[in-house]
C-alpha cells in the first residue's frame, strides 16, 4: 500500500503555540486539521513536510458562535458535519450548510474541517497521482516538474480550486481571521484566494486560519449546487453559489460565485448586477445564467469534459436562482447530510 513519508507531528493546545511552532520550523512545517486531503496527498508525495502542526487539539478553533442577527463566527476546525447540521447555519446561511454537507463522504465530513475545506489544495488529474504515475507521464510544475501538462505553453499552473465552501463563503460576504506569531488580521474571504494553481492562497505560510466570520443574514437567501459524477465522494467539478438579498419580490443585491472552474472561485459580477432591481422571473434568470457562464474557464483536467462543465455553468446558475425564486426545487438533494 501507499505509505506516508516520515514526519514529526506536533499537537499544540493553543493557537499561539501553533503559530510559534509554525514560525520556528519555517517552510518545513505544514498545518493539518482533519487530514482528509493532506494525508492522501502526502502518500502520493505531493507534500513531504518534516513537521506537521496539528490543529485538532486546539479547543478555541472549534465551534459555532453568534447568530444570524449579529453574524456567525465559525472556528476553522469545526467539522464539516457540524457545519452541515448546525440549525442557525441551515436556517440562515443554507448554501453553506448544503455545501458543507456535500463535501466527500460522511466519514470524511466527520474528520474534515471547514477551514481545511476553504484552504484545500487545488486539484488536477495530472497532479493528484502517485509519484510513480507522475514520473511516467512527466512531472508537472505544481510538483517536481517545470511545465503545465494541461496547458503546456502556459507559464502558470491551472490546477482547479476544488472547495465546495469557498465559493459559498465568497457569495455570503464572509471574512476570515488569520493569526501568526506576528499578529492577526481579518480579511474578506475573496482576498484569501489567488488565481494560480500553485500559489492559490494569499495566506502567508506562517498564518493560521482561525475563524470564518459570516455577516448578519439580513434578508439574504442563498443556494449552492454542485456538479460531480456521483452523489458522494467526488470533489466538485463545478460549484455554483448564489446569494440574493430581496426587498419584497425585487432583488436588492446579489452575488454569484462559481467554483471548480478555475484556480480560485470565480465571481460573476456582471450577472449579479443584472439581477439587481429585477424580479426573479424565468426570463431574467435565463439572461443572468448566460452572463454568469462567462467567467467559467474550465480546462481538461478534472472529471467530465470541460465544454460540458462550461455548458453546465449556465444550467446550474439558472437552477440555483430558480430554487431561490421558488420556481423549482434545488437540484441536489440535501438528504445525504443526515
Amino acid at each position: 500500500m501507499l505509505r506516508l513519508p516520515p514526519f514529526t507531528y506536533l499537537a499544540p493546545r493553543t493557537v499561539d503555540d501553533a503559530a510559534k511552532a509554525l514560525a520556528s520550523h519555517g517552510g518545513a512545517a505544514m498545518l493539518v486539521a482533519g487530514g482528509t486531503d493532506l494525508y492522501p496527498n502526502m502518500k502520493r508525495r505531493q507534500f513531504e513536510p518534516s513537521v506537521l502542526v496539528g490543529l485538532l487539539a486546539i479547543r478555541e478553533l472549534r465551534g459555532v458562535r453568534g447568530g444570524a442577527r449579529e453574524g456567525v463566527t465559525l472556528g476553522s476546525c469545526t467539522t464539516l458535519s457540524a457545519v452541515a447540521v448546525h440549525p442557525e447555519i441551515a436556517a440562515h446561511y443554507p448554501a453553506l450548510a448544503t455545501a458543507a454537507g456535500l463535501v466527500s463522504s460522511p466519514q470524511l465530513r466527520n474528520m474534515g474541517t471547514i477551514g481545511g475545506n476553504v484552504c484545500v489544495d487545488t486539484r488536477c488529474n495530472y497532479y493528484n497521482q502517485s509519484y510513480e504515475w507522475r514520473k511516467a507521464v512527466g512531472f508537472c510544475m505544481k510538483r517536481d516538474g517545470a511545465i503545465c501538462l494541461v496547458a503546456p505553453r502556459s507559464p502558470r499552473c491551472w490546477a482547479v480550486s476544488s472547495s465546495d465552501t469557498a465559493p459559498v463563503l465568497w457569495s455570503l460576504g464572509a471574512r476570515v481571521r488569520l493569526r501568526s506569531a506576528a499578529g492577526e488580521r481579518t480579511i474578506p474571504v475573496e482576498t484569501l484566494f489567488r488565481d494560480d494553481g500553485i500559489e492559490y492562497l494569499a495566506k502567508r505560510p506562517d498564518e493560521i486560519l482561525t475563524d470564518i466570520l459570516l455577516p448578519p443574514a439580513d434578508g439574504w437567501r442563498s443556494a449552492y449546487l454542485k456538479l460531480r459524477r456521483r452523489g458522494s465522494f467526488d470533489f466538485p467539478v463545478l460549484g455554483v453559489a448564489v446569494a440574493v438579498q430581496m426587498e419584497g419580490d425585487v432583488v436588492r443585491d446579489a452575488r454569484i460565485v462559481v467554483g471548480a472552474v478555475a484556480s480560485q472561485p470565480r465571481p460573476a459580477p456582471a450577472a449579479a448586477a443584472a439581477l439587481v432591481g429585477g424580479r426573479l422571473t424565468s426570463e431574467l434568470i435565463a439572461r443572468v445564467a448566460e452572463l454568469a457562464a462567462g467567467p467559467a474557464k474550465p480546462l481538461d483536467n478534472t472529471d467530465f469534459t470541460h465544454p460540458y462543465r462550461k455548458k453546465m455553468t449556465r444550467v446550474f446558475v439558472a437552477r440555483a436562482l430558480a430554487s431561490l425564486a421558488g420556481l423549482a426545487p434545488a437540484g441536489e438533494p440535501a438528504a445525504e447530510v443526515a
Partner: protein
Amino acid sequence: MSADAGKHEFAVIGQPLPKIDAWAKVVGETKYADDLFLPRMAYGRLLRSPHGHARITRVDTARARALPGVYAVISGADLPRVRFGILPVSQDEEALCTEKVRMVGDAVAAVAAVDEETAEHACRLIDVDYEPLRALMSIEESLAHPEVRIHEYGDGPNVHKNVSLQFGDVEAAFARSDLVREDVFFFEGNTHLPMEQHAAVAAAGPDGKLTLWSSTQTPHYVHRLLAKILDMPAAHIRVVATPVGGGFGGKLDAFAHEIAACRLSQLTGRPVKIACSREEVFYIHRGRHPVLMWIKTGFTRSGEITGCHLRTWLDGGAYGSYGVASTFYTGVINPVTYRMPVYKFEGARVFTNKPPCGPKRGHGTPQPRFALECQIDKAAEQLGLDPAEMRKRILAEPFTKTANHLTVTTIGLGECIDRVVEASGWRTKWRGFFSEEATSRARPGGATAPSEKKRRGMGIACSAYLTGAGTAVYWNHMPHSGVILRADRSGSVAVLCGATDIGQGSDSILAYLPAEILGIDPKDVHVHPADTSLTPVDLGSYSSRVTLMCGMAAIQASQRLREVIAQAVARKLAVEPGALAFRDRKVGVAADWERAVDFPQAVELAEAMHGVLAFAGSYAPPRRAGKYKGGGVGPSPCYSYSACVVELTVDEETGEIELHDVWIGHDIGRALNPLLAEGQVEGSVYMGIGEALMEGQVFRKGVHKNPSLLEYKSPTTLETPEIHTFLVETNDPEGPFGAKEAGQGPLLPVIPAIANAVYHAVGVRCDEVPITPEMILKGLELRRRGKPARVGPERIPLFTFKAPVVVESAFGQPADAIAVRPFQ
C-alpha cells in the same frame, strides 16, 4: 421469488441462511492475505515501468542493495528464463521483464526489506535504462503500425488472435429476411475494482519447500505456473488461497507480486509479503476488453431472427492472459438465447501497450450482448413490435443445440420476461418507442416527473450465460472439481475442496449440500478450502463453475458417506438402509422416529463398521465440445438466463441519468440459498450499472488516466436504484439439486436495458458505453438539428479476418445426452 417453500422436501436447500463466513466478515475477523504476519517477515515491493513500450538496456540494483534495511533486490536475471501465461497458447509473460516492457506498470525488479517504506525507497534506487519504443495505445494504432511489434507471436503483426467461424449460410438467411440491420457498437474497457487489493505472502522453508498464501481465485493454476516459473517440483510448492475480498476475474492469473514474493523468500530465508497498491491493481487489470463490434442480423416481420453475422475487435492490452478465450466468448454465447438458425462470427484480439485485459465477470459476453440487445430493440421499433413480446416469441428451444453446436438444457427465460414485465408495469408504462409526440404527453410515471426537462423511460433486455466452462485451461481428462468429506465422531463433517470463496459463497454451498444430504446443520460442517496440499483440485472460481462443479462433487461424496452410515444404522435398527431418513441430526425410520440414532452415534457405528470415514467426490462436465477448431469455448453443463427491465429518468438539460428501478428475473435452476442468490444478482446489477453509466479504463498520454478509487468512477449506493429480483427455478438436470449459476449472468442484460431505456426516454440511441451526460447532450443536439440521434462509433477498422471454419449449423438438433458424468 418463485421458490415455493411448500413444494420442496428440503431442510437446508432453499432456505435464506446467512453465509457461514458472514459473522467473521462483518466483525472484521476474516484474515485476508494482507492480514497475515509471520515471524521475521520481510516486506516486498515491485519496481514498475514508467514507459509504455521500451527496451531494457540495463538494470543495476547495486544502490538499492546498499540501502540499510534491504534484504534482497531481484530483477528478471534472478529468475529462471521462463515465459508463462495462463493459457498454453499464450506463453508471453515474464514476472520481471528482462528485455522489454510493454506497458506502464510492467514489473522490472523487486525488493524485500525490513518494512514497506524501506522497500519503496529502495525501488527508487534501482537504476534501469530504457530505450523507448513507440507505444501503441489503440486497436487502430496497433494495426496501422505493423513495423512496431509488441510481441513476435500471434496471428499477424500485433494481432494476438484472429478467428472466424461460420455455421450455415448467413447471406442466404439475410436474403430471406424482411428486415436486415447493420449496426456498430463500442463497449469501453473497465476494471473489476475488488475492495481487496492483491496481496501475497510467500514462505520458503529451510527444507526447500515453498508456501504461498495469496488472494487468488485459482490456487491450482497458480500452483502449476509457479512450478514452471520457479523451475522447481510442483510437489514442493503449496498454494493457499486466502479469503478473497472480491475477485470478479481479476485474480485468475499468476502475477508478478506472487512470483517475486516467492523468489525473495527463497533468497532471504524470510517470509515475504507483497501487498499491491490500488494503482498497481489497475495495472494488473485483466479486466473487460474494450470491444468494437459490427453486427448484422436478419429478421422476419414477426421478429424471428433469420441469421446473424458478428464481427468483434478486442483491444487486448499488452499480454495474452485469457485473451484467446475472451475472443471466442465475444462470439459464441449470443446464439444461446434466441432462435438463431444461422450464425457467423469473426473476431480479432489486438495487442496494445496497456494493461492486459482478461476475464472480468461475464468474460467477453457483455459486449456482444449489448450489441445484440440494442439491435433487437431497434429492429422491434422498425417492425412495430413490443420489444418484450418480440423477445418472448423468439426464445431458444430447451434441450436442443444451437447453430454453433452448444447444447442447451432448461430455459426459464420466458418466465423471467413474464415476471419483470408484470412487476414493472411494462404494459402500462411502456407506450411505444420514442417519438416527439409521445414525449409531449406525460411519459410513464409522468405524474411524479419533477420537471418537464426530465423524461422517464423504460427498456428491456435479456441474456444467457454459462454455468461453468466445459473445458479446463489445460487439456486433461481429470475431474474439474473434487471434494473429500471426512466424518468425525463428534458428529461434525469436514469438507476439503480446492474451491476458493471469492465472496460468492462457495464455502457456504460446500456446507449446505452435505448438511442437506446428511440431515445435519450447516454449522456442523467445517469447510477447509483452497489449499493445494490438503484439498482435491478445483480448477478455480471463474466461469460461474463452482456451485455446480464443486456442488456435484460434494453431493457425490456426501452420498457415499451417507450410504455407509445408513448401512451401519440399518444393522443396528434391523431395517433396510433404504428405509432410513437423515434429518434433525438423527438417522432413523420416519415411522419409528423415537428409535432414530443421533448423528454422532451413527458416525461411530459407521466408523466401527468401515474404519475411517473419508469419501471423495469428483465432477467433470459432460464432454460436449463441438467437433471443430474452437469448439472448446462455449460448452457448459447448462446456461442461466436473465431478463431485465430498467426505469430511469434523463435530464435533458444536464444529460444526467437517474435510475429508479431495476426488475431482474433470473433463471437460476434452483436457488440453493435464495438470500445468497439474490445477493449475487444485486451485485451483478450494480456492476452492470457502473459499466453502463460511468466506468472506463481509459488512457491519456500513454498512462492510465485515473488509477484510483476516487477518480475511476464507479457507482455508490446513492446511484444504485431499487433492485427487484425474481428467481425463476427450472430444476436443471445438470446442476446440484437443479441449480445453475447466478454470479455473472445477471450483469449482462442490465447494460443494454439501460441503453434501451435511455432511447425510450429521450430518443437518443447510445451505441456506446459508458453512456455519459455528454453523449446524451450530443444526441439531443443531433435530434434538434434533424439528424439521426445516434451516438456511437462511426467506423470499423480495415481488417481481414481469416477464412472461416465452415461448419454445418446444428440449430434445432436434439441436445447431446444430458447428465452424463464421467466420474459417476
